[in-house]
């Protein structure tokens, strides 16, 4: 094979563009970089990035186009809506999809867990699932509560819109929080769109909640932080993987006080071996090399590189086809793509369990004289509990 095709669905203009753009750049630059450096052992990666603006029909059309016109072997996807919509198509077409939707049920390739509606054998993602990340945060919160020496049961609140993405970890996380001895309060619904959330903040305040899981992204989170700051809510915010990054911190400014957020990669400036490669990759779209990428970019890179190595295995073992790439994902254990040591966490996929990553790094952001300082506060490794598979 001279070349194979990889489709890339991105949201750079739609409602999730705020983070979608960073992640998409990571994927796009990686694809370009791989090609510029010999491809998959000589096989070039043809690719096309389509900005589907978070519209499902457009995502499907793009998928079909790639499938029928380009003979796509694997796809880098994006959001919850399109990933879910494509599950059965990709399973039927045997096309592995590496999405940025980390919904728990995508980790169940065989449909073992009773919560899983439909097995997702061809879905992969790099990162802890939303549920797992939230579990990690709760675990941290539990330790935090104890270490502060506070008395009584800590109270936990899920804060987010009533939509698939923010709701994804809601039940799972609440269950675990209860297990850890939290008093789980009624979730507070705030819209995905920014607005004045003082009302919700006031009721959070009056409920006396201690830990709030912020499930939304972008402007909505910003509004929430500002509104709660105004009315003086004393709560420990903990965000989802998409809810804390440099862009958000810059916009929120002084509102950021002990803001907890998870990551699955280091930051741009961190001194880890693999960061050199990431900087090189970044130059694919930023020749000056000056741009500081946020950590979503790194996840895009990791997602692409895991795919790359699976393809390399596939090439050696019968050719780069969807099926072989999927098999390639199961070969390595404690797998870190070459050159990205310290950037991508060690991953383990198996054909029964698609929870590639079960580790969450927990950081804290604080506004200090004109900028936000982040520091690592903890690292949580989650058990691979059977009842958590796909949930």
């Amino acid at each position: 094979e001279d070349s194979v095709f990889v489709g890339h669905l991105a949201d750079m203009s739609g409602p999730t563009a705020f983070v979608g753009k960073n992640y998409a750049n990571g994927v796009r630059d990686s694809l370009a970089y791989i090609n510029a450096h010999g491809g998959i052992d000589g096989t070039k990666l043809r690719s096309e990035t389509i900005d589907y603006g978070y519209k499902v029909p457009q995502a499907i059309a793009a998928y079909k186009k790639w499938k029928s016109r380009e003979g796509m072997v694997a796809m880098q996807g994006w959001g919850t809506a399109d990933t879910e919509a494509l599950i059965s198509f990709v399973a039927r077409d045997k096309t592995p999809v590496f999405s940025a939707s980390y919904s728990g049920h995508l980790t169940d390739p065989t449909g073992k867990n009773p919560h899983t509606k439909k097995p997702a054998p061809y879905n992969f993602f790099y990162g802890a699932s939303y549920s797992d990340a939230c579990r990690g945060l709760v675990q941290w919160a539990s330790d935090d509560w104890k270490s502060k020496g506070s008395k009584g049961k800590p109270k936990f609140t899920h804060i987010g819109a009533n939509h698939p993405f923010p709701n994804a970890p809601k039940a799972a996380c609440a269950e675990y929080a209860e297990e850890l001895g939290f008093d789980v309060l009624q979730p507070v619904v705030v819209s995905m769109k920014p607005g004045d959330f003082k009302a919700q903040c006031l009721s959070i305040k009056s409920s006396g909640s201690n830990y709030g899981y912020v499930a939304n992204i972008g402007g909505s989170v910003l509004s929430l932080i500002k509104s709660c700051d105004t009315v003086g809510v004393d709560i420990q915010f903990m965000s989802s993987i998409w809810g804390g990054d440099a862009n958000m911190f810059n916009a929120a400014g002084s509102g950021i006080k002990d803001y907890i957020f998870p990551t699955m990669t280091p930051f741009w400036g961190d001194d880890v071996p693999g960061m050199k490669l990431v900087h090189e990759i970044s130059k694919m779209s930023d020749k000056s090399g000056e741009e500081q990428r946020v950590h979503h970019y790194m996840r895009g890179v990791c997602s692409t590189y895991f795919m790359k190595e699976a393809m390399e295995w596939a090439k050696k073992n019968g050719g780069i086809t969807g099926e072989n790439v999927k098999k390639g994902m199961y070969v390595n254990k404690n797998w870190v793509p070459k050159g990205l040591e310290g950037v991508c966490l060690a991953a383990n996929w198996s054909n029964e369990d698609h929870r590639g990553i079960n580790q969450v790094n927990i950081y804290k952001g604080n506004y200090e004289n004109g900028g936000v300082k982040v520091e690592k506060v903890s690292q949580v490794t989650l058990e691979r509990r059977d009842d958590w598979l796909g949930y």
Partner: protein
Amino acid sequence: MSSLSMRPCGDFRTSYKQDNTIFETKTIRWVTIFTIIALCFAPLVVDGYFITLLIQISYLGIAALGLNILVGYTGQISLGHGAFFGFGAFASAWLNTSLHIPVFLCIPLAGFLTMGVGMMFGAPAARIKGLYLAIATLASQFIIEDFFARADWFSGGASGSMAEPVSLFGFAFDTDQSFYYIALFSLVFMFIWGCNLMRSRDGRAFVAVRDHYLSAEIMGVKLNKYRLLSFGISSFYAGIGGALYAHYLGYVSAEGFTIMMSIQFLAMIIIGGLGSIKGTLMGVIFMVFLPEVLESGVGVMKMTDWGNIPMVVDGLAYIKEMAIGLVIIGFLIFEPEGIAHRWTQIKNYWKFYPFAY
């Protein structure tokens, strides 16, 4: 709004039956039939991508026709069509998974369920008119959307619900190519249904209500019944379209049926032509192909020098979106009455050719 009735010379009608046909002329009739037959062979000729687009046109077209019956023919603007479309999708999936009704029955049943819901939310139409009604339907959009996210038993809540493929006599229509026939059949059926509706009693009553509801009532048309019925029929169409969508994807998620979708449906019928059945189809085709065409445009642009200017490369996504906005605006500025109207004018022009009038 041509006041002339124009038919080619030599086309004399000798009975009312001939004069009452759906198609203006024999030629048009044969062209239509031929097109449908040709479409039946499409999967043999064109690739999967194209088939997807045709399927998209089918389910969106059915729903859009419903909206046109409501907006174009009855004159009641609805901003909640996307939600009804979604309701049809969930309803069909729900009927199938929880009541185990075969899918091919679920689709029409979902239509009727949606019809019921549509009439429930259309009930204010008996009292509210015009833009007030439009905003009331906006309220139904949000309320139904909220319901999707909340009603776990019905929609699967946040995790969505699965929809089985259509199967008939043991044959599962689970590939694009086979589902295409279901979609095409539904489209043709629903459009013929629509054409016939508009040339029979209740269809005329809709238009009468739109054009002059006061005098319509005095002519014996039950005003409230028809205002409500048109909501019902429009939701019925939306429900069918939604159900097809669900069984095509195999999965329904609460996220897709937003106000943007409702607006997109409106755009389709306005661009195609309000109160025109063939216009509806044209509008849908237009709106489905527009992003695809622009996407290829972006592809072409990347290959030129322009594709290297960072400002442009970064902005391609936005430029594409902007182009969609611009095309809609430009289209309406130059063709405010929709494609169907321009079509008629072109036809008339050729009939009189070479005489200008």
